[in-house]
């Protein structure tokens, strides 16, 4: 009894998500038959063919280039955001200058900076990197500052009472306490940053997955465009899953994130 119920549960946990994907694929295939125009709605087998071609060709290079843009921009944005948050929490004067500027810049979407980025860096890696940098800076800054300001003062007192130096309080109390908020910001900015990066590569770079879309469009290869879209979707999904995994393993101590045993 128990075993068959477990098996049923296991099968369902795979079948249910799969059926959603299958439904989407079937819907697309029907649309392509109705449209009867392989350019307008390329049928699945054509897209698959393009995907295989891509995999034999430039796919790895494109993915590596995109991930490189992502790592560079996200890394610098996260570090700067964290540093600014620490400075703002420590010095009221810095906060008084940074806060209003950040409040004004924050709602501007990263993508809107594309023309300026092209102007500043020229077409190339600089554009997507700058856009991810910009997209990750503010969510991480705002969330980190919020997290740092909400640190339970009793925990700081407890650490001081136990003999912790000022530096130790920052590295071992303030930062870990702010970590859940920083992670929330990081996930947000990775989502926004991924989108901004594709846009930046599409119009302002000569490498990466976004550029590949642009490239296929030049040759009017819509199955190529669709194949690249599929790759972008899968990688975007995997990145978020990776961050979620990291979140639940790093925040195992937090009742809200890591599951209790």
């Amino acid at each position, binding site marked *: 009894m128990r075993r068959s119920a477990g098996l049923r549960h296991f099968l369902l946990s795979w079948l249910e998500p799969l059926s959603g994907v299958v439904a989407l694929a079937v819907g697309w295939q029907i649309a392509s038959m109705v449209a009867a125009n392989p350019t307008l709605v390329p049928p699945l087998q054509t897209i698959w063919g393009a995907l295989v071609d891509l995999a034999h060709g430039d796919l790895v290079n494109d993915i590596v280039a995109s991930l490189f843009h992502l790592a560079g921009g996200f890394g610098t944005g996260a570090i700067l955001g964290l540093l600014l948050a620490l400075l703002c929490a420590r010095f009221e004067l810095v906060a008084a200058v940074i806060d209003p500027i950040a409040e004004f810049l924050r709602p501007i979407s990263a993508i809107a*900076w594309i023309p300026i980025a092209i102007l500043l860096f020229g077409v190339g890696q600089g554009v997507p990197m700058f856009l991810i940098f910009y997209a990750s800076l503010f969510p991480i800054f705002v969330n980190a500052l919020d997290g740092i300001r909400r640190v339970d003062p009793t925990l700081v007192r407890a650490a001081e009472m136990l003999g912790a130096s000022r530096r130790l309080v920052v590295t071992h109390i303030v930062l870990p306490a702010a970590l859940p908020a920083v992670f929330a910001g990081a996930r947000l900015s990775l989502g926004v940053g*991924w989108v901004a990066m594709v846009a930046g590569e599409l119009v302002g770079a000569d490498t990466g997955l976004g550029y590949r879309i642009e490239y296929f*469009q030049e040759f009017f290869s819509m199955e190529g465009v669709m194949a690249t879209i599929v790759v*972008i*979707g*899968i990688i975007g999904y995997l990145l978020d899953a990776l961050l979620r995994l990291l979140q639940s393993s790093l925040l195992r101590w937090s009742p809200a994130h890591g599951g209790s045993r």
Partner: protein
Amino acid sequence: MSPAMRIGLPFAVVAIVLVAWEIAVRASHTQGLVPLPSGVVHSALALTEDGTLFSALGSSLERVVIGFAIAAAIGIPIGLAIGTVPVLDRTLRPVLDGLRGVAPIAWIPMAILWLGVRGDAALFVVAYAAVFPFILNTSEAARRIPRSLFHAAESLGAGRLLLIRSVVLPGALPFVFTGARIAMAFAWGSIIAAELAIGIKVQTARRAVAGIGQLMVDTLYVRRDVDALVLYMIVIGIVSFLIDSGLRRAQARLMPWTQR
């Protein structure tokens, strides 16, 4: 710190930076390559006078509003459905997550093909960007409604439709509004991107349909007017800021218990 200083200090810092910038650009004779603060003011005056700026802004905002409305009309029902029916959630979630991972911009070639360059392609991109915050927040809201409310309503003899109208919607409204706020920000951000991308592709898309993104492409590639480009950025910034703070204020007034 006194309130006067709190307001004055950032202004003072920005003003000093701007003056230093102006002096540096003039001293190094790089006008035209690097934007000049006084040049930005010049083009602001010129462009508001001939009306280009406002008409572009108007057509961009129009697309944002329509795209936003389409996203709401699609996203809220889907969100309610997957939030209240667990099977739908388990089947559709991976598909939605996958689609969400695709940058809306990536659809531009397809959208141009399907809907044409005359603004409709940009509409598609806007709706695509804005639909996911609606879905996510509405489903999350529906899921958070206590089961006991359902049981109570059911035991009173309420059918499924009445249940949704009288229990699910009111309980979910604050979350949906938060979703709408995010969706609006996404919509406004992606209209510019879409117009940019389309504008770069189709230089022939002329004034009649030009939004602010197309105007930027024109400025960057055709007229190479760096000062105007910075002006557009500032305008975009101001509009972004106004949209964001306006919706925040609306939320605070309509639903004072949901301040997040």
